């Protein structure tokens, strides 16, 4: 069976008119032979048949049809067509409503109320109203409360006008991960203040030179990756029995949430990527986060996470260390503060708090602090991170 769908014929119309079938219902047609006439607001289009077959009309001439709508079907044999038709008829008969009166229109609020309290359509129909509002059903229910216990239970849970909802699957996964983290990872944390003047200037210059978007988060990914060899425990994974597995590469996860759910896509092998590659990949990930569209391999395999809190005036946030990882780096929002420059003048400078939450089983305060200090130093003298020369190892 081949479905016959109306293609999009122009940009003006939301719907067209099916003027005429050029093959009679049940007739035989060959692929690419003229099949049906469709009228747009401007033109009359003759559509060719998408395949050989026997036609079963789904939409009668004179009716409106939208682009993508199924208007008919083609069957290889007349028998197949007859079989489909018989099944269709049977389904229609089964679905037919015995009552002769037209069903009333329910407002959305009334529909929700009816579902919540299990009010059957017959009782609503018996009201004899053309349009049924919530107040009509409230009155109906006050006159004859539903005996249904389960409905009553739902109602008592929702007595304060709240509703029962199920978390999206994405958020259920987040819930499981953070619960497991708090149950199994004993974390401690430390923070340093970073002067971002040089970093922000370097990012702007780089972005203008390369005609791309490049910001402090991109720079931080490069900086974190560069420290893996000097701080192997920060990237390690705790195993049972007092053992750890160190990492052969820096796979940096970056948190992203644009209202479609929290995602942590991963910059794999970040230590061997150029600034341009990291910038491009993060931009691609941001677009995917907006659409909530990631492939499994893009969100798997991180051995450190960069938790971005760099907007909304957030000073700092203690990130969650994901089970299987040892450290999460967090970045707060940029703040402006007064400072005294080298010549003793009062100036303003832009700073942010940079933090690390770490698994205290593997890393002590000294190690975490050393990691943070080196990260701070890289951000405050960022040029080597951005020059591809002498970077690859």
């Amino acid at each position: 069976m081949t479905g016959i769908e109306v293609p999009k014929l122009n940009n003006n119309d939301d719907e067209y008119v099916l003027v005429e079938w050029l093959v009679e219902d049940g007739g035989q047609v060959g692929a690419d032979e003229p099949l049906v006439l469709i009228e747009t607001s401007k033109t009359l289009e003759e559509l060719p048949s998408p395949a050989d077959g026997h036609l079963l009309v789904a939409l009668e001439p004179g009716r409106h049809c939208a682009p993508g709508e199924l208007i008919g079907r083609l069957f290889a044999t007349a028998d197949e067509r007859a079989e489909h038709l018989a099944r269709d008829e049977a389904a229609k008969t089964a679905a037919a409503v015995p009552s002769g009166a037209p069903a009333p229109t329910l407002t959305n609020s009334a529909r929700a109320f009816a579902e919540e309290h299990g009010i059957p359509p017959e009782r609503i129909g018996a009201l004899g109203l053309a349009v049924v509002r919530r107040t009509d059903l409230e009155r109906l229910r006050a006159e004859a409360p539903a005996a249904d216990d389960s409905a009553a239970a739902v109602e008592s849970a929702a007595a304060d006008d709240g509703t029962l909802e199920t978390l999206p699957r994405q958020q259920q996964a987040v819930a499981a991960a953070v619960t497991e983290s708090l149950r199994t990872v004993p974390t401690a944390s430390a923070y340093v203040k970073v002067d971002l003047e040089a970093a922000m200037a370097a990012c702007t210059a780089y972005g203008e030179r390369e005609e791309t978007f490049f910001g402090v988060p991109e720079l931080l990914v490069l900086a974190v990756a560069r420290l893996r060899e000097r701080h192997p425990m920060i990237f390690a994974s705790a195993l049972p029995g007092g053992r750890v597995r160190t990492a052969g590469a820096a796979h940096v996860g970056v948190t992203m949430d644009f209202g479609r759910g929290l995602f942590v896509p991963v910059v794999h092998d970040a230590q061997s990527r150029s600034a341009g590659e990291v910038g491009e990949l993060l931009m691609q990930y941001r677009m995917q986060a907006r659409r909530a569209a990631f492939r499994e391999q893009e969100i798997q395999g991180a051995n450190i996470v960069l938790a971005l809190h760099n907007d909304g005036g957030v000073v700092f946030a203690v990130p969650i260390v994901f089970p299987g990882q040892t450290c999460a780096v967090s970045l707060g929002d940029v703040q402006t503060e007064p400072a005294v420059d080298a010549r003793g003048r009062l100036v303003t400078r832009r700073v942010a708090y940079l933090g690390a939450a770490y698994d205290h089983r593997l890393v002590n305060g000294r190690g975490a602090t050393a990691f943070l200090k080196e990260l701070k130093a890289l951000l405050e003298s960022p040029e080597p991170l951005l020059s591809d020369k002498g970077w690859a190892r």
Partner: protein
Amino acid sequence: MTAATRATRVGEDLNRALHTVLERDPAAYFLGEDVADPYGGAFKIAAGLSSRFPDRVLSTPISEGGIAGAGAGLALMGDTAIVEMMFADFVTLALDHVLNFAGKSVAMYGRRVPMRLIVRCPTGGNRGYGPTHSQSLQKLFLGFPGINVFEVSPFHPNEALFETMLAAAEPCVLFEDKVLYTRPMFADGIVDDLLRYELLPGTPGGGPIARVFAVDDAPPDWVLLAPGGLTDRVCGALRSLLLDEELSCQALVPSRLYPFDLDPLLPLLAGARRICVVEDGTAGGSWGETVAQAVHRALWGALTAPVLTVHAAQLPIPAAGHLEREVLVQQTTIHSAVLEASR
């Protein structure tokens, strides 16, 4: 079944009405740019006319001033002239002939001179035609004695509309929403599964006024006044306001926008809790504001709140579809404005 079973489109109904006018009135002329067959005008509203009436249906040079002037001259000499502006935006070029010549000719010769001139203006946006081919310029013709402003709607059969305009024997500017051309005419009092309509008598000379209401015809929380071009968007808002917000709204769609006589509508308006006027153009000396002011004068003391007015944003109309939708009045604009004002 044949193609004839589908509802007539507004554009087709207009075309038929023009055929009828030219058929019944041997002194009727039709002028416009590219109106002759096979092109039949930019929106095909003149299709077939030049083939049937080759001496009286004439394609003109590209000069709206010339077209309107020739039409006004025909009218002054006792003929009937229907002239087509390719886009309503270009009617600015015809203002002198319409306002200063045709409009004044009715009254300035010591006796009343019938001026049967109809200026047809394809109007409105939502088709991505950009800032100079999408405007709603009804406001340009308001408040001039001797000038009547009408607007096409799917509720008002166009044959009767043309009879009304020609009976006025005064220059009429007819606005025809371009999107409406491809929409079906309504018949038998039915808009869709939820909405019904009836034609109220209105005032003599102004044609009937369509009243749109939900199937239960409940007393309205809101009455919305809107020209015919907004029909789809207003009806959509009536539906969503009822189903999503439980607000009962009715709509009144007049055929003649100016002069606009409120009197026949006052009982209905006085019975509504709130009143809203919706229009496609921008605010500032507009039809919506004129009507709102008339309602304030007539019902001051009975109103619970000022009349709500909904207009296009004060911006040139963008050609990009997603930006154009934000600038022009949409169903959601009406819905949000009414909902907001209900709180």
